[in-house]
């Protein structure tokens, strides 16, 4: 350890390079976070010095990869991204591009927080998928990207659903109307989403609630709109789907109300 301290403080870049590389290789074998961290401290010092020199490529890659292994995703993503920009002709650029994307994937927060990182991760993954259609990590990249897309869909879906949930609150009917618009946008924007069936159902239900809670002179028109949304649901889904029974029950009530108007 004392040797490490000495190299860290005094040695010239060549020695630091050698030790950092050794630490990196050992860390990889032993899966040791502490060795990666030690290597990172050395790399931090020498990366700027080797920039532009032949060894720069390797140093930059190992530096980024060390961050990647210790799980410092923010810096790993950034350093790999820089590597890809600086050495587009490198042999390891494919790996770097993928690891950069994967680091951003790990940074993506839960669905109900700001999704800037998610959008960035999807873009980086897509960059990889486009650049390496036969790439080594293609399958994983596709899975990760799909994962994130579902997350974005869940976000949009849950926001729309909240308008439905707070429907009774605030200016009369305003939130149900918001739910209808938000679900319509959702259905148009995410055609293959796993939440699509629920979105169709909730859009109907928002319209139905909007109608039955409105003044009588508006009710007929609004019930007819709800009926249209029911038909939209029926076009794609049938018995056995999750919300089929619920929508059927509401629709029967809707029909009887329409007849009594």
């Amino acid at each position: 350890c004392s040797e490490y301290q000495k190299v860290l403080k005094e040695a010239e870049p060549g020695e630091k390079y050698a030790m950092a590389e050794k630490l990196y290789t050992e860390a990889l074998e032993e899966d040791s976070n502490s060795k990666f961290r030690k290597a990172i401290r050395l790399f931090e010092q020498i990366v700027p010095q080797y920039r532009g020199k032949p060894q720069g490529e390797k140093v930059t890659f190992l530096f980024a990869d060390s961050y990647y292994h210790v799980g410092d995703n923010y810096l790993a993503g950034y350093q790999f991204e820089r590597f890809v920009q600086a050495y587009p002709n490198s042999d390891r650029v494919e790996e770097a591009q993928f690891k950069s994307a994967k680091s951003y994937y790990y940074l993506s927060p839960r669905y109900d927080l700001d999704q800037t990182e998610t959008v960035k991760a999807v873009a980086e993954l897509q960059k990889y998928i486009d650049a390496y259609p036969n790439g080594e990590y293609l399958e994983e990249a596709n899975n990760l990207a799909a994962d994130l897309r579902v997350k974005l869909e869940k976000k949009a879906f849950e926001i729309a659903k909240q308008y439905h949930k707070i429907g009774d609150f605030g200016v009369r009917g305003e939130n149900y109307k918001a739910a209808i618009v938000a679900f319509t946008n959702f259905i148009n924007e995410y055609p293959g989403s796993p939440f699509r069936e629920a979105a169709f159902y909730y859009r109907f239900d928002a319209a139905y609630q909007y109608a039955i809670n409105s003044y009588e002179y508006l009710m007929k028109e609004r019930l007819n709109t709800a009926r249209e949304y029911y038909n939209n649901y029926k076009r794609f889904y049938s018995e056995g789907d999750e919300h089929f029974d619920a929508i059927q029950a509401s629709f029967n009530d809707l029909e009887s109300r329409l007849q009594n108007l």
Partner: protein
Amino acid sequence: QDLPLGQGKKYTIGSITVTGAESYNEQTIIAYSGLSKGEEIFIPGDRLSKVLKKLWDSNLFSDINFYITNVEGDVAHLELEITEVPELAEVRIQGISKKRQTEELIKENNLTPGVKVTENLTTTTKNYIENKYKKDGYLNAKVVVSTSPAVDTTGANKVNMVVNVDRGDKVKISNIEFNGNEQLSNARLRRALKNTKQKNFFRFWKRSKFIASDYEEDKTNLINKYKEKGFRDARILSDTLIRKDNDNIAIRINLEEGNRYYIGDIEFIGNTVYTDEQLGRALGISKGDIYNGVLLKERIADPSDPDAADLANLYKNNGYLFSQINPVETRVYNDTIDFEIRIMEGKEAYFNNISVVGNDKTKDHVIYRELRTKPGQKYSQQNVIRTLREVGQLGFFDAEQISPDFQNVDPNSGTLDMQYSVVEAGASQIELQGGYGGGGFIGTLGLSFNNFSLSGIFDKEAYKPLPMGDGQTLSLRAQASIFYQTYSLNFVEPWFGGQRPVSLSTSFSYTRQFFFDQRRRRADKSRSFDILGVNVGLAKRLRWPDDYFTLSQAVGFQRYDLNNYNTGLFTFGDGFSNNLTYTLGITRNSEGINPIFPTTGSNFSLTAKFTPPYSLWNGVDYANLDQQREFQLEDADGNLLNADGLRLRPGDEPVGDRGKIDQEKFKWLEFYKIKFKGSWFNTLYNFGGNSNLVLRTHAEFGFLGAYNNDRGIPPFERFFLGGDGLGAFSLDGREVIALRGYPNQQVVPMDRSTISQASNNDGATLYNKYSLELRFPITLKPMASIYALTFLEAGATYDNFRDYNPFLLNRSAGAGIRIFMPQFGLLGIDFGYGFDPIPGSNAGPNGWETHFIIGQQF
């Protein structure tokens, strides 16, 4: 060799050599250029130009040339000749004596050794310093920057820099002269020049500096002043700066006023949504008025105030985002101008997608439920502004940085998306205190998390460092000294159930106090007093009668446990007391706009607190407890005692044991309490902007009663009037009511004034209080709001309604100041003079009292 570009020929690079490099490695420069051996390029061609541009852009070289040194077939050998920009070795600043200023200048211009001394650096340094001095009134400041090669032992390319600063004398404006003004006086015109002032002995605030950019602005202000008065054609013919001597200049402005104009006919064209009459009323300018160009513009659209009641907002608040309004002068005759106000209403705009970005901690549902703009809603600027305000008031975000971004604004489909960007702000506070008091060390640890997430407490991932983002409040507090400990926990969920803003609050507290032995200065652990309290409340915003109303309900329970401990509250030292209450409250709060300095609105609250009326059904005859065997005084062997504490002898009456009787009476406390408070805020006078002189009128009233007079009103929950109103460390649920000009909690009931001993202060069961307060803001900046106040107050307490006399009051008057800073909350100091004696003392007026205020009390 110069070749025309079109004749570029393809070569393979054989070798690249770099000449002229001093501080950089040759390899580094080649690698940076991106050229590599064996690459095929056109010479001359696009590739080399790009490389040149890249090298130039690095700002590291003052000269760059490519040469072909040798051509072998289609292999070209290149030479890259560069001249490096010198590095800064040392900088010296002359002409400034203060070291700190020198250092500041070096820092601000980034003149650290090693920076590249480019042409740009020297020019910006010169301009920066000159402008800096000019801004401070040194109009003649001159700066010369020169460089000379530095002798360096390593032979590196370095230069020394000398910055010569001659700031000259401070220049003041001795005189501002106007020529050609007949309609407006010189003094009036000078006032119009807002930041350019002539020298005056009485001018403390704004010095008479000459700053060119301010002067230019002021010339526009001057013309605007004329425009306001109807002089549409007024203009400045010429203006001169005259140098009087080294530190004085004069300004002479030659004006042409032109004629004064009046408004003629105003015609609205293109309006379908509003009638001419409606628009005319909104415009507020009519035929015959003096032509005020500035006002006219403001009435149509005032970009400085997004809330203004102008024509543009009339349209925008009702969905016409795409509307355009242009006033056009159609006819000028004599001194009258006719107008046409041309309106293109455009399509009504609707919100489509509403989104929020930047919420790294706060979850979507907490924000979206507060947004006033909804998908499918008609566009309204008012709702956007209200959203900004209300999201800001949540306290989770930096209120200054919340901004609405209009996206995908599409006049054809009439839709727009709105994206609110927010920046998370720390919403947690930690309080850690230690101090010496009450006979020993007192330590306090308080934690309050204002954006807590209860659902996250079992989720390992959510600890960053604590589960956050559901908008809930959790606060924990512990205080301990050698003889008492108190713990409390509060939790508030503002949207219980998630469907509407029904706030659920729960709190739990526990206090344990040991008897403090004054003589030995230590706690006696065998004698203790425990209080356990639990509270659950629900508060619901109402829609009827209007949405300022809130209905709240709460259930509370307290248990007092005494273990050989006489508190003075109870006549018994061993025993317990329970207090189960239900509180129903209705409040209406329309205080606006600034919560720290309300200028309008009012705040009323009416609450009623009850315990169950146990005596209705428990069958205990409270009037005659002392007649019952089990509540009579007895000795350790169970023999009854007489009033002298001796064994009962024939003929003696047994007496009641006060301790036992009180234990029976206070086993479950029984009372009801009604309180009313009302405050009104009126702006008496507006001095412009938000300098409002505000009158706050306040009245309050409280009554504590018993269902069963034999059982009586318990010694708990009573009212203590007087002083700063800060809740002291209290065990008995007392209500502390402020009355400035009197000592804390000392204004005892009026009827006790006949008793000479005022210390018999066990609280009152009835009180009223009135106050008038005039407030004037000194500053209302977000960093710190300060206002001054003067007050008249009066209040009194009573033991029962028989004594109640709303005119027999303890009166006071005084003045004070309040400072609000977000980190510290509200702090203040008041000086009050009490005109009346404290009841029970005959000492005449109470006189001056000083009150320190922490938190919102008055």
